């Protein structure tokens, strides 16, 4: 019997520090997956950690890791040429085929931008399927901005709006200092024909969703990605259950009306 808890070794092609505590790994792994799905990365002796795909490319995979604990710290110490132990992909990603013909709105906060980058790359590979895309990304400070090297390309292809919570200073992509929620509040957005992808810290989600609903968005136009404590990633260990749904198996991507009001 195939052991679902067993990891596959993949070769690390490159490693890029995006911010003082966030690093992106590019690995030599060709695996079919949807944007929004995730893998489990293992460091034998230290543990495992769920990490979402932040790329969509048939030739390789990218994972963006924020150092928040023992395992993510150990992952961040891996080096190009070395081996990363992964298992997956897991969960339900974004059903991109269902969004054909729509205009996409991305709202991301902090490391929540990473899984959204996976969708953006999917869109870039299937440009003719989508009307266009607006990118609203918020970070705590300029240092925390992820994927800086891609901002020019994104700006030339899509509408890009980056907010910085404090001390934005002079920054070519930014609006005045403030939260991404403020930017959404003041943006003129016609809900018609749009699909919204939200990914970020709980407080950002809680504040942004009512704003969107006020603007006339329907609940089934909003897609959220749920962050939970995950261990097994296959709906067994029970940690990530949110009012009966498993973030790892039924999610992590949910249409808002599916998990509206559930928090636990």
């Amino acid at each position: 019997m195939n052991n679902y808890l067993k990891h596959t070794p993949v070769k690390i092609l490159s490693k890029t520090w995006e911010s003082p505590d966030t690093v992106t790994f590019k690995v030599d792994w060709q695996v079919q997956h949807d944007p929004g799905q995730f893998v489990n990365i293992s460091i034998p002796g230290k543990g495992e950690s769920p990490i979402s795909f932040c790329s969509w490319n048939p030739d390789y995979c990218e994972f963006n890791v924020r150092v928040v604990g023992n395992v993510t710290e150990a992952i961040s110490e891996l080096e190009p040429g070395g081996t990363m132990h992964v298992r997956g992909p897991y969960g339900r990603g974004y059903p991109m085929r269902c969004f054909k013909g729509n205009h996409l709105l991305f709202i991301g906060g902090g490391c929540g931008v990473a899984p959204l980058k996976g969708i953006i790359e999917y869109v870039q590979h299937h440009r003719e399927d989508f009307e266009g895309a607006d990118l609203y990304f918020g970070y705590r400070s300029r240092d925390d901005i992820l994927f800086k090297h891609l901002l020019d390309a994104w700006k030339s292809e899509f509408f890009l709006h980056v907010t910085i919570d404090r001390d934005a200073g002079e920054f070519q992509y930014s609006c005045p200092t403030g939260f991404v929620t403020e930017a959404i509040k003041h943006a003129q957005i016609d809900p018609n024909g749009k699909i919204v992808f939200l990914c970020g810290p709980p407080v950002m989600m809680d504040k942004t969703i009512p704003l969107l609903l006020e603007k006339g968005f329907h609940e089934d136009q909003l897609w959220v990605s749920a962050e939970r404590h995950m261990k097994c990633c296959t709906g067994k260990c029970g940690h990530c259950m949110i009012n009966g749904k498993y973030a790892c198996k039924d999610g992590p991507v949910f249409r808002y009306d599916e998990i509206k009001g559930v928090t636990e």
Partner: protein
Amino acid sequence: MTEEKRKPRIAIHSITGCAGCQLTIYFIKDRLLDFLGAVDLVAAPMIKGKNDDDGPYDVCFVEGSVSNRRDLEHLKKWRAQSKVLVALGTCATHANVQGIKNFHDARTVHERVYGQEAANLEGGSAPVAPTPLDEHVKVDYKISGCPPEEVEILKFIKEFLTGMHPRIYHEPVCVECTKREIRCLLEDGKECMGPLIRGGCNALCPGVGHGCTGCHGPIEEANIPQTIELLKANGVPLKLINQHLQKYAGLAFDKLGAAIRKEVEGP
């Protein structure tokens, strides 16, 4: 990294207490040589003649509570010269039995213990209210226990040596007790502090038919009012319950809202 990793410099120091906590480290028997091989034990006055008192230390284990001015001076010095400071044992984490003094008139206690000499406690020996280390300095990790458990110390050392932030077990005694299938003493109408107390001991005392006396100190979410109700229902007098709460971690239970300041009179 091409150069060989430097062994971490470890110190084991002591202030007011019985020194039983550091003995637990030396009593790890067949693992002691592994431990000594993995670290550079630069200061351990109990077992070493030559000690580096000035640091710097990568990890400094401190046992005992701050009970006089000399303790405080030492603690501040060790803190300043240590990357990581670990409060080892319940004296260091909760002030332990000497902390009972906090619930009594200090002068009465001093006279009772030192008689005529009580008035002469001066300089480094001048008493301060017995307090856990974190009342005075930043403590990075706390391994409680009277004495702390060998497995907890070993786990800490292993996780530290692999560059991790060690994780300390913090479920109540009942969890391990139930997993060991021990008949519940509370259910039998006896005294046991298990529901309030941090485990990690693998239910050592209940395993031999003795109720938990609480030597690991309280868990984060201790439900004190309800546990007192359970003990009272078993016929344990409130005064005795409060004495149990005061015994190892009175200050912590006091902070958690246990009304133990008024209830107990006289030493």
